[in-house]
């Protein structure tokens, strides 16, 4: 197995980018529940060490968990799409940022965009009503989801969800979701 770093990868550049963007954690690879627990606990430790406000810490934890369990239920094997899911947590003076990325079948783009646009179009009370209604009507799916992920993330973040799709090939795109939490 070739484990050598490709000469084109400049580790110091990568480090500098991470450092200057205050990246707390970055991961690319498949997720399972064990890996989710591991990255959650690493992030939690870092937030505690940096004395992040308890309310903000809980929001970051909740949103990460929801985003990662979402990916876990919808991820593809790398062989199918040639891309892995990813997670990146960073901060700036005003916000913590949670980025998740995963491959999505092009036929799902419209559905995912419309779900996100729906939550982005609602204010706090609108989101609360939508969450209550959706939860009453939700049935736990075969993969264990309740269909409430985006609504919950939007409520906890108190900011619009930002997202983009990057085309990979004729079948798949890479979906990046960015959730912001203000540092208060």
């Amino acid at each position, binding site marked *: 197995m070739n484990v050598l770093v490709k000469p084109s990868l400049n580790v110091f550049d990568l480090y500098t980018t991470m450092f200057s963007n205050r990246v707390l954690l970055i991961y690319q690879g498949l997720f399972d529940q064990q890996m989710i627990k591991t990255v959650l606990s690493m992030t939690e430790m870092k937030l505690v060490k940096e004395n992040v406000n308890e309310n903000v810490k809980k929001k970051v934890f*909740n949103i990460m968990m929801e985003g990662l369990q979402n990916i876990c239920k919808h991820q593809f094997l790398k062989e199918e799409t040639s891309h892995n899911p990813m997670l990146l947590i960073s901060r700036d003076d005003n916000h913590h940022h949670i980025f998740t990325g995963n491959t999505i079948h092009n036929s799902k783009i419209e559905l995912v965009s419309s779900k996100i646009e729906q939550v982005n179009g609602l204010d706090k009370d609108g989101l609360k009503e939508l969450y209550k209604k959706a939860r009453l009507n939700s049935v736990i799916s075969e993969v264990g989801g309740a269909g409430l992920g985006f609504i919950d993330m939007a409520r*906890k973040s108190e900011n619009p969800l930002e997202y983009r799709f990057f085309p990979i090939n004729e079948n798949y795109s890479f979906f990046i979701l960015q959730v912001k939490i203000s540092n208060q």
Partner: protein
Amino acid sequence: MSTLQLQISGTEDTPNITFNEQEKEFLISGRSLPEDVSTFYKPVFEWLSGFGQNPVGKTTFKFKLEYFNTASSKIILDILMKLEDMVQSSQAEIAVEWHYSESDDDMLEAGDEYKELVEVPFDLVAY
């Protein structure tokens, strides 16, 4: 052994769930983030059916969670609705306590929303 025994020990991603028959107290605490909520909570729903058929006097259902995922949020609602059914059919006398950390606005709000949704005596308790 009592048929009402319930003892599920908590882990990093699943809650501690116990029923204390002497104190007449059901307690769910910790983190509820299981991947497969339906399988995890199956014994709890089985226990609830048994509880509904064996009145033990006024019982307090305490929820003291640190984190829960959206799938668990649906399950908690299902549990509360089962309790509401028991109260409305006079099968059991029940009080719910929703405990939340003072520094956790979202947990308070979650409790408030459950309180609005179900007709069961429901207290929000800060810790």
